[in-house]
């Protein structure tokens, strides 16, 4: 049987735990301890989780983040989101293909009173923003409750195996996201005034300024003095033919499967979207031993950092700019993807279609803030702050820094003597949020003597750890701005390789001519497993843009501790191109070849609302009858009425209005209602489930207990 687990990884440790048996359609399979059902199914090669009741369309994961409901399965008789529920030993999992039967209940139920607890500051989300805010609040002695729906703190940091950009002092630049998560968690856990509820979901902000929280299966009402919404973002969906086929899912979902759960969900994948999320996901795929067939970007240039794009180029991944996806093809699962070139008005040009065989298509077309609670709290007059992506989509480095600022602001608002937020903090926050700047021509040094770093970094982004790490202080950024490009001060280099190791963009090499002017030893950072490269190999080296320079011998492979899992690979290269070398090819060119046959465009309807399977055609025809209220559209078609709570499709519906030439000012938005996710009625009744505590111990103050019932 094929193995879909990652058994070796250049960065991540592979956990050892006894396998947990469970059943899928009566067949015994094995999960890792604590693994989510969705990941366990993927690890066993199962990608179709059920069929939609409306049209029997096969369904699998989309967000793997509890935001949509496309991955629902039946687990021990209950319909659950498989990405959020861990496998229990002996669990019986079945596909969800019809309306489920009313789930059974235990013979005798016991009830607990629904508690109302008071806290000074309730932080929704234990990711980079929430944790950074909590640290500041903890320092000021503020009573904090952090609520997070996952089983581990860190938010999306736990998926970030790459080293961070930014600056060392502001946001741990040069350190991997997974390690930053651990550092922040350790800091937060050190404060007595901070309490953390994991596996707990904020369900709604109510008009009486209370927040409903499902804490490990038990319902609690929280009354905060101040709310901090640090709930991050959700991935945007995209409308194209076959967009709900199992195998089409979000890049974040992919990173969850690969980097959190160590599942290798794909053999060959294609990425839609050239922002940082798509570029990084493609890189993570390569690291996990998955072939990346290509990446397309609708704009003429990728929106993500150039260093990320360059990395992919060098590893042999074709990038198609001004291209978009036409269709995901396959009957039950993805078998191929068709892309086409776009004309200046964003329409695909007939005849430019190309089809690539692949089993997975990652959608990475941007993020939407999870800002429902921010808006509701503002509307209902509950003092509220937003931080990180929930407030404004940006890099995690910016999220950490805005979180820090909000923490201080909240402490001040709560009367703590913490002083003003230093003005330079605001400046740093803005810098960290800045979009990549213009690309300049790379400055390649021409000398053929001594030892020196070469920077294949030609786009202004907020990043400067190379300047901080150099023991000789020989790397500078003009004007000391974090946004500028690094330059090397002549004759200062001792060849320590620290700058090569820390660069998050893998954009620094060390060129050493100390043994002669004809040939140089070039040190190249390489974030793959040791099995992929060894001394004596001949490798193809490429320049920044992925052009082949030649084949050179590997003279040494080391894994120094300071490089934090990256390999330092030394090659011998002739002086003609030694300084031009930016990377080593990982993927052979034939991987990205299109199929000879053209797959016909499938004339199925394009799905806008995944939960209720409402097509773009249905919505367009209603817009053409003059409909201008999304609430009316919902009433007529059920679009937005489904299990995800209308989190995925409203923006797509709005896009259809725009496509039909209707200004959004004419369109009435959907009324937002609680709950943010589906919760059993029994939780609100106070049914004791045994999954977690029903009462809280001091110091959180209990206000009142509401006893329902007759």
């Amino acid at each position, binding site marked *: 049987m094929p193995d879909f687990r990652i058994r070796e990884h250049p960065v991540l440790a592979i956990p050892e735990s006894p396998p947990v048996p469970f059943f899928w359609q009566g067949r015994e399979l094995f999960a890792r301890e604590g693994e989510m059902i969705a990941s366990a199914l993927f690890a066993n090669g199962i990608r179709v989780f059920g069929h939609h009741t409306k049209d029997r369309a096969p369904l699998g994961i989309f967000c793997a983040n509890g935001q949509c409901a496309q991955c629902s399965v039946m687990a021990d008789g209950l319909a659950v989101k498989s990405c959020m529920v861990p496998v229990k030993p002996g669990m019986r999992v079945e596909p969800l293909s019809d309306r489920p039967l*009313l*789930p059974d*209940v235990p013979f005798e139920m016991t009830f607990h009173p629904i508690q109302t607890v008071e806290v000074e500051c309730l932080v929704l989300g234990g990711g980079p923003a929430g944790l950074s805010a909590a640290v500041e609040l903890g320092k000021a002695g503020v009573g904090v409750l952090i609520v997070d729906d996952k089983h581990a703190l860190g938010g999306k940091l736990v998926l970030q195996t790459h080293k961070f950009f930014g600056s060392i002092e502001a946001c741990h630049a040069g350190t991997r996201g997974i390690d930053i998560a651990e550092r922040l968690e350790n800091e937060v856990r050190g404060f007595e005034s901070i309490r953390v509820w994991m596996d707990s979901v904020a369900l709604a902000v109510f008009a*009486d300024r209370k927040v409903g929280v499902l804490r490990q299966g038990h319902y609690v009402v929280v009354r905060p003095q101040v709310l901090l919404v640090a709930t991050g973002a959700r991935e945007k969906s995209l409308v194209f033919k076959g967009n709900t086929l199992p195998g089409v899912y979000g890049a974040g979902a992919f990173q969850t499967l690969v980097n959190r759960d160590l599942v290798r969900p794909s053999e060959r994948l294609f990425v839609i979207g050239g922002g940082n999320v798509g570029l990084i996901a493609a890189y993570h795929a390569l690291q996990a031993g998955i072939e990346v067939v290509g990446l397309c970007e609708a704009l003429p240039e990728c929106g993500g950092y150039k260093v990320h794009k360059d990395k992919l180029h060098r590893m042999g991944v074709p990038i198609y700019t001004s291209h978009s996806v036409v269709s995901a093809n396959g009957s039950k699962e993805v078998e191929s993807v068709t892309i086409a070139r776009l004309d200046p008005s964003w329409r695909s040009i007939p005849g430019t279609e190309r089809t690539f065989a692949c089993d997975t298509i990652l959608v990475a077309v941007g993020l939407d803030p999870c800002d429902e609670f921010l808006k509701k709290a503002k509307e209902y007059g509950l003092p509220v702050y937003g931080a990180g992506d929930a407030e404004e989509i940006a890099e995690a480095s910016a999220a950490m820094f805005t979180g820090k600022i909000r923490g201080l602001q909240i402490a001040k608002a709560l009367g703590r003597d913490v002083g003003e937020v230093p003005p330079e903090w605001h400046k740093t926050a803005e810098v960290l949020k800045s979009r990549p700047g213009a690309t300049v021509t790379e400055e390649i040094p021409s000398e053929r003597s001594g030892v020196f770093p070469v920077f294949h970094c030609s786009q202004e982004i907020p990043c400067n750890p190379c300047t901080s790490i150099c023991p000789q202080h020989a790397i500078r950024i003009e004007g000391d701005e974090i946004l500028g490009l690094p330059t090397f001060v002549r004759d200062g280099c001792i060849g320590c390789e620290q700058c090569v190791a820390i660069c998050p963009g893998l954009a620094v090499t060390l060129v050493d001519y100390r043994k002669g002017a004809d040939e140089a030893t070039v040190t190249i950072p390489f974030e793959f497993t040791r099995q992929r490269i060894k001394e004596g190999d001949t490798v193809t080296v490429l320049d920044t843009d992925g052009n082949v320079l030649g084949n050179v011998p590997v003279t040494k492979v080391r894994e120094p501790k300071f490089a934090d899992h990256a390999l330092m690979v030394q090659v011998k290269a002739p002086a003609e191109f030694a300084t031009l070398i930016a990377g080593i090819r990982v993927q052979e060119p034939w991987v990205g070849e299109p199929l000879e046959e053209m797959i016909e465009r499938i004339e199925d309807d394009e799905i806008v609302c995944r939960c209720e399977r409402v097509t773009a055609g249905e919505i367009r025809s209603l817009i053409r009858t003059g409909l201008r209220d999304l609430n*009316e559209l919902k*009433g007529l078609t059920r679009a937005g009425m489904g299990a995800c709570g209308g989190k995925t499709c409203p923006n797509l519906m709005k896009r259809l209005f725009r496509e039909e030439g209707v200004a959004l000012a004419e369109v*009435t938005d959907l009324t937002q209602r609680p709950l943010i996710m589906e919760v059993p009625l029994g939780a609100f009744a106070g049914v004791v489930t045994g999954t977690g505590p029903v009462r809280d111990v001091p110091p959180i103050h209990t206000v009142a207990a*509401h006893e329902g019932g007759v």
Partner: protein
Amino acid sequence: MATTVYDAIVVGAGSVGMPAALSMAERGLKVLVIDQFASPGQGSNKCAIGGIRATHSAPAKIMLCLESLRIFSTWEQIHGDKIEWVQGGYCFVAYREREEQVLKGLLTTQKAYGLDIDWYDAAALVKIIPGLSLHGLRGGTFSPGDGSASPMLSCLAFYRRAKQAGVEFRFGERVTGIMQRKGKVIGVRTDKGGYASDTMVNAAGAWARSVAQAGALDVPVHPDSHEAGVTEPVAQFLQPMVVDIRPAPGSHNYYFFQHAPGPIIFCITPDPPVVGTDRRETSTFLPMVARRMVDLMPILANLKVRRTWRGLYPMTPDGSPIVGKSKILEGYVHAEGMCGQGYMLGPGVGALVARIVTGHTVDGDTGVLSELSPARTFGGGEALK
């Protein structure tokens, strides 16, 4: 000033206004509907849970809802629009002697009007409501002719027919004045323009009083709010609407049913009432209603709640609607104060309004109109609300 003169202007494109406009247009009238919201049913129609019953205790409501039931139950056959009508019946359950007496006491009146309703003992009732708690159950009434449909889908179906019948609509306009001359209506003014007609029907639901006040009239309609919720859809297991009229701390009755697409839709009446037009969700609703439902039907405990909302009941002092011509302002027709039953009363009231406006009332209307008269003395209350 508008050039078109309408035969009638309806204020409110909701549960009552929409069928009223349609009924009038079907009788050949040129009708304009004005609504403050962006599209049909965005006031309280979309907040209704969808129950439709004729098994009331007041004769007027029985008559009007029998007509509504005829319209809802045959709509799909006649017009082809899906409105998710299901004839699942209504069950009022009794766990105490007091409720048993009230329910049994009403049966005489209800049967006198030809309603199909009977008392079932506990053993018979759990066959109709599988999973109902037997603990203390004395029995209950079941009326198989009642049912449910989708308020939003039916409102939009009426809307589509009304447009085909020539009704004009102005959405997103708020009524600012009722134009009058010598004690007669001559038109309606909104924040966006003026429209001429000698007849105006006030079907503005929870906002009826402020619309009436725009014409210097007053109607005793004071909204209060109720919260409701809907669960995930599950396979069909429950046929009737289940109503428990016992009071409990913080609430009066509550009720729930399984809607055609599969979810349970539920609602509770708060005690004391929450007066006003605030439609924002509160933290008290779910714990209050959930415990009562799970006590009544333990099997509901694992059913997942998807969404909650708060809607308005346009209440009158005696709990009965106000329908009929104004004695004070000629051309003003009341279709107000449906007390939370606008959806089930709507088609019946709409047809009655059309008969009033065209002067074609029938014999059976006389009693109804006297019971719901705007000129009545408001006192007392209905036994079964």
